[in-house]
Each structure stands twice: as structure tokens, then as C-alpha cells.
């Protein structure tokens, strides 16, 4: 094994390691977002928990997948999906919270029973 082959091998393993670490960080943020949706009391706080999903979780998860793929057409498709998520998810959260505010809900006005407001 020459020195160039050794460097290529080290680069490949480093790429896989960085991708695995990024995917694990993204999965941690997605888990926190799911727990927040289940546990928080109000529609406003729940929508705040959902916006963790696109702000950091999807960024780390899809970025890790794109790094694992390398520079191919698949990584370009993954980045297009990431761009569409960043365009779509704030609009969805904005429309949901605006509708809730128009219907008369206010932040912090939820009584502590298990009614899903």
C-alpha cells in the first residue's frame, strides 16, 4: 500500500464518520421535536416545537446524507429537498398559528386538562 492509497482510504473513512455524526445529531433534534409535540400544552408552543424539525434536524440529517453520497446527482436531489423544506415549513407554521389566533386562542390561556387545543 502506497502513501496515496492510504490517504484515499483515510478520506473515505473520515467522510463516513462525519456523515454518521451529522445524522445522529439530526435524529436527536427530531426526537426532541416529537417529544415537544406530545408534551407541550398549547398550539403555539407545539408549533414552536415543530419548527425545530426543519431548522436543525432536517439540515443535519439531509446534510449528512448528502455528504455520504458525495458529489453525485443524488446529493443534488437531497439538497433540492432541503431547499423545499426550508421554503415550505415556515409558511405552514405561519398559516396554522395565524388561524389559531384568528379563532380566539391566546398564548398561555390553556387550562391544564388533556384537551388537545
Amino acid at each position, binding site marked *: 500500500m502506497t502513501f496515496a492509497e492510504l490517504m484515499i482510504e483515510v478520506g473515505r473513512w473520515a467522510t463516513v464518520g462525519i456523515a454518521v455524526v451529522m445524522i445522529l445529531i439530526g435524529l436527536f433534534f427530531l426526537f426532541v421535536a416529537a417529544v415537544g409535540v406530545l408534551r407541550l400544552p398549547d398550539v403555539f408552543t407545539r408549533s414552536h416545537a415543530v419548527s425545530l424539525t426543519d431548522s436543525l434536524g432536517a439540515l443535519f440529517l439531509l446534510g449528512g446524507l448528502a455528504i455520504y453520497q458525495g458529489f453525485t446527482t443524488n446529493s443534488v436531489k437531497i439538497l433540492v429537498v432541503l431547499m423545499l423544506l426550508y421554503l415550505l415549513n415556515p409558511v405552514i407554521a*405561519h398559516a396554522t398559528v*395565524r388561524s389559531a389566533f384568528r379563532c380566539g386562542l391566546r398564548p398561555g390561556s390553556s387550562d391544564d386538562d388533556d384537551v388537545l387545543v
Partner: protein
Amino acid sequence: MIQAHDSVIVRKMSRVLIPLIQLYALYVLFFGQQGPGGGFVCGVMLGTSLILGILVFGPDSQPYRLAQKAMHGDGVGLLIFAGIGGLCLIGGGQYLNYSGLTIPGIDTDVERHYLGILLTQVGVAIDIAVTAISIVFSLAFIDDDRDDP
């Protein structure tokens, strides 16, 4: 009855996103021979893009009129699907066996299969899109002159 949405953010972003959705639907339709996708997914995406336009821009807008025009093409998808099958039957094969598809200029077996699958998927896409739009019309635009239940 659906009114137009009055939020500036939702209107602008829908105006940006509806052509992207339709372009991606066509990509899925033509890519469906080498990967995931096909006519069903393309029809769902075309129908939902028009439904998004109806929900955001209201019944006095261009997507509503386009959807009303698209409702007239109700049986075109079924006609295309069964017509390709009938062409295969005329050419001497079984129904929807694309080796018997006789179109002048298409000679090899591979081209016949490619063209036959693509045309049947186009028919499926048209039918699914019209079905989705008709479901939304039936549910959302009920006449207001009935008594309250």
C-alpha cells in the same frame, strides 16, 4: 364556501411554489421508468397543486377556472389507457402487451415498450388529477341555499 386567503406570506409563497410542484410532477412522470414514481404520483401532485391554488386564491381566480376547465377532461385518461390497449390488440398481440403496438416509425421492441408504458402512465395521471379536483369540488362548493341541518 371557500374565500381567498388574506395573508401576504401565504399568497406569495403559493405563487412561487405552484409551478415548482407542477414541474416536479412532470419530472416524476418521465422519470418513472428508471426509478420511483409514475403516473399515479404525477396525477396526485398535479391535482394537489390546483387544489392549493383554489384554497389560497379563492373562487374568483385563475386556478379555479383552470380546474373547472380540467373537469371537462373527465374520461380522457381512460380513453388514452384503453386506446393504447386497443392499439396493441389491433397490432396482433394481447391487450396491453406492448410488443404488438404498431405505430409507424417505432420498430424495435424496446422503443415499443417504452412508448406504451409512458402513454398509459400519461392516461393514469390525467384521470387521477381530475378525480382529486372533482372530490374537492364536491366537498367544498356545496350550494348555500339549503337549510341549515
